[in-house]
């Protein structure tokens, strides 16, 4: 991941010290590994179908999102990529009437098994949304720490300071906001707000980071900064990103999965998945070839 806009690059590397892991979740959700042993987890889906009431949005998806790489989900509008992404951290079921069939596992543990607390799953699988959405009533500092304070955790101020700084450095935002940590989060530019949301997501130390078109609301300079950031974050997390922008998928991802709809009203399917280079240069399916060469979509 090259950074062409050298001027906008933040200086420091994120600090690599491991923080103490959050409290272990109740089995069977995997517990976060203790400090020093942390590694990103694999998400595996088998025959996953997603429904909104009677309407089937996604059908029979088998794919694996591997650790320490970026998997891009591409495809035309309405083919179910975002719906699929939201099923990976149990946000899909928040819509009334929504249903999941099939098996989704995080490092081998079924996240939809009976007795699994969706709140715990969401602490392990974080999400960054399309439009930056910092909490308007909180300052920058409070926004980053929100994942920790909203869960009722009591941390000493010094610990919190450390987590906030580490997360902001990790999101390449520290230098820009270190003098204005007490100002409202909504006073930042779009690109800064999105990096703030990323800092907020990584502050809780998830194993997986899901990103739903994180750059679609941003200008090209901010987009590049985020893509650089994603390239760096993959060394510590498993990352899946939904994107409409094929060039972004080509630039920023290692593995690409192509979703498609046969026609409106039919459920979306996973057509092909493979190393990004292969998908964009010599895909095996005709539909994939048509999409990446711009013949439709």
């Amino acid at each position, binding site marked *: 991941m090259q950074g062409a806009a050298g001027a906008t690059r933040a200086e420091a590397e994120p600090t690599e010290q491991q923080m103490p892991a959050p409290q272990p979740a109740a089995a069977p959700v995997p517990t976060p590994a203790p400090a020093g042993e942390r590694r990103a987890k694999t998400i595996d889906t088998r025959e996953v179908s997603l429904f909104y009431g009677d309407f089937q949005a996604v059908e029979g998806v088998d794919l694996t999102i591997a650790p320490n790489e970026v998997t891009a989900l591409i495809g035309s509008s309405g083919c179910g990529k975002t719906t699929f992404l939201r099923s990976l951290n149990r946000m899909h079921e928040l819509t009334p009437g929504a249903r999941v069939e099939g098996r989704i596992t995080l490092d081998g543990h079924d996240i939809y098994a009976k007795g699994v607390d969706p709140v715990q799953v969401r602490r392990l699988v*974080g999400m960054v949304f399309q439009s930056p959405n910092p909490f308007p009533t909180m300052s920058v500092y409070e926004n980053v720490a929100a994942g920790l304070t909203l869960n009722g955790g009591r941390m000493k101020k010094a610990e919190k300071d450390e987590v906030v700084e580490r997360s902001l450095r990790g999101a390449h935002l520290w230098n820009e906001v270190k003098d204005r940590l007490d100002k409202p989060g909504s006073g930042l530019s779009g690109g800064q707000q999105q990096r703030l949301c990323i800092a907020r997501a990584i502050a809780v130390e998830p194993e997986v980071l899901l990103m739903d078109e994180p750059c679609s609301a941003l200008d090209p300079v901010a987009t590049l900064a985020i893509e650089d950031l994603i390239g760096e974050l993959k060394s510590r997390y498993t990352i899946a990103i939904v994107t409409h922008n094929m060039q972004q998928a080509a630039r920023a991802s290692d593995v690409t999965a192509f979703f498609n709809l046969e026609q409106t009203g039919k459920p979306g399917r996973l057509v092909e998945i493979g190393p990004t280079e292969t998908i964009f240069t010599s895909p095996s399916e005709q539909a994939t070839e048509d999409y990446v060469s711009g013949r439709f979509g």
Partner: protein
Amino acid sequence: MHAQADTPPLLAAPTGGSLWRRKLLNQAMTALIVLAFVIALIPLFSLLYQVVSRGLPGLDWEFLTGTPRGIVGGGGAAHAIVGTVVITGVTTIISVPVGIMAAIYLTEYGGKSRLRRWLTFFVDVMTGIPSIVAGLFAFALFAIFLGPGIRLGLMGSVALSVLMTPIVIRSSEEVLKIVPNHLREASYALGTPKWRTIVKVVLPTAFAGLVTGVMIAVARIVGETAPLLVTTGIVDSINTNPFEGRMQNLAVYAYSEYRTPGVMKQASYDRAWAAALTLIAIVMILNVVARLVYRRYRTEIK
């Protein structure tokens, strides 16, 4: 193709006659609307003028701090002012938690459930309950448990809260609906349980609107007379305990001074007007405070 500058009919300037007619119509309509606005404001200004001009003479130190002096009449309205504050305070304590929690249920947990539809229906009905009915309800309720002769400040508060709660529910519901869903989603995505999301994200974001809604509801009930006539009654002394004895509020005081004036009729009437003026002043102050709180605490949501 267009040899000469042939302006298409659409862009040609309107000819004299139709332009003049349109301008005249415009001005006539504007004048009519302004006139309607002025007519609508006349009662308000006339009322304010009357209350201020008749109430000011009666508004003196004695009025604000003294209590009535027996059959002869005279004295002041301190007991009524205190009564107003106490009764309104207790009403708020009853209505606000119930109202806001009901609004939270309706927006966050209700979904499409039948309970929600029934609740919304009954809240709508309650907003139309005549205030005397609310008073009689409170009277009957307490009469069942405590005997028919009872008079308590608390009864008045119960009656008023029947009137205030639906207003709080309606306005809170509207405010909570405005909180954008993507904020809730951001909180859920961090692994926050639903109730914490409501307490720590939704309510703070809606705070300014909630306070404004409550203040407006208070302003609505602070001048109610009928329900208090049948519940808290007419009394002469200051009573700060809502659980014991009669209590009087400014609206009832104005009524009683007018209905049963003392020996010096005019002075009684003056005091009634002064009570009305005080009430209007209280409502104005509440509205101003509501606006200030809103401006200070409102959150800019993109």
